[in-house]
């Protein structure tokens, strides 16, 4: 048997997952060290691994750096207005329950301006997946503070430190009754991909908060100037605890205070669609 040699890295022009990304638009606009590319990889792996036909996957996103993800994934993708992807996804899913609708958007988009749509969609338990990317800031518009910016963190609109406390998103979403609530970082690639795979199967509002590195944005205001600073932050402070007390999983980013990750909630809750069927029965449309 002839022995082959590896002479170094092989230079190629295509990656195996290029069938699920709009490769003609790569390299994408996100900064070096941004976690969005990584979670895009986790998402397309989850899509490929799901037993749902690829053509039935739909992604809806809003405005912001994360929102651009719709333009990079080779699925039916809708890039709508700021704060509204969840309402758009609800309209779509209600009329086409056979579609697997996933909203991937940022913290500013989904729970700041879009907060109202967020809480009602969880309450209704419409069968959509919502992957909220939390970089603690409004990245695309120049790093203004948002509803997940930690108390005291700097931003372009909080030069003296943010005077507001941020949302504790897993607590909020679980309290609203969501059937699936998880939090991972863009460093925890395999757990994140697995959580996404589970979310695609969950019936009802499946929520994942994805903490993402943002060295050029949030990081430049808060001493996390390079990707490796985020790797250090995540490696040193992240604790995985699936049964954590959600009252205590708020993120402060203060030295020594943990970032708690895990698949916190996974339960069965009647979905909007099941409840809507009751209307059809009572109205005489279904027997």
């Amino acid at each position, binding site marked *: *048997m002839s022995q*082959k*040699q*590896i002479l170094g890295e092989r230079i190629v*022009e295509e*990656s195996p997952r290029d069938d699920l990304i709009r490769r003609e638009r790569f*390299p994408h606009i996100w900064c070096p060290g*941004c976690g969005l590319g990584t979670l895009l990889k*986790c998402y397309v792996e989850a899509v490929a691994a799901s037993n749902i036909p690829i053509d039935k996957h739909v992604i809806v996103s809003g405005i912001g750096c994360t929102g651009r993800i719709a333009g990079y994934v080779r699925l039916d993708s809708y890039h709508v207005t700021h704060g509204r992807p969840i309402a758009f996804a609800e309209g779509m899913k209600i009329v086409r329950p056979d579609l697997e609708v996933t909203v991937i958007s940022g913290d500013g988009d989904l729970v700041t301006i879009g907060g109202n749509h967020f809480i009602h969609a969880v309450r209704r338990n419409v069968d959509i997946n919502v992957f909220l990317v939390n970089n603690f800031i409004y990245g695309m518009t120049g790093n203004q503070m948002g509803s997940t910016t930690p108390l005291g963190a700097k931003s372009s609109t909080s030069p003296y430190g943010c005077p507001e406390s941020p949302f504790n998103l897993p607590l909020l979403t679980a309290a609203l009754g969501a059937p699936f609530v998880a939090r991972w970082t863009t460093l925890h*690639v395999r757990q994140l991909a697995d959580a996404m795979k589970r979310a695609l199967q969950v019936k009802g509002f499946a929520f994942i908060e994805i903490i993402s590195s943002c060295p050029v944005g949030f990081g430049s205001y808060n001493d996390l100037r390079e990707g490796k600073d985020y790797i250090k932050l995540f490696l040193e402070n992240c604790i995985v605890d699936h049964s954590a007390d959600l009252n205590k999983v708020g993120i402060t980013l203060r030295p020594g205070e943990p970032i708690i990750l895990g698949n916190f909630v996974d339960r069965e809750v009647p979905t909007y669609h099941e409840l809507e069927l009751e209307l059809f029965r009572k109205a005489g449309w279904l027997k």
Partner: protein
Amino acid sequence: MSLKLVREPINKHLQKVPLGIVHVIPERCKECGFCIDLCPKDVLAVGEERNIKGYRWPKIADGKAMECIACKMCEWICPEFAIFVVEVDRGEYV
């Protein structure tokens, strides 16, 4: 390896350490360094050549070509879809 074996596993000769060949798409790389920092075997290093945007894509560090164990951490973590690993049979390579 500092693992002290209490007894010799009877199928030890059948255990194979995976081997991977790293593939890179230079034009996509943005020199973020994640792959280099997170490789558990330190197989990757900053390359010498620059792509059209001026970023240096990763190369296999000197002498490390056979150290890649195809864990694919680089492939998963790369935000640019610029690097992936193909697993091959270690027995076929020197």
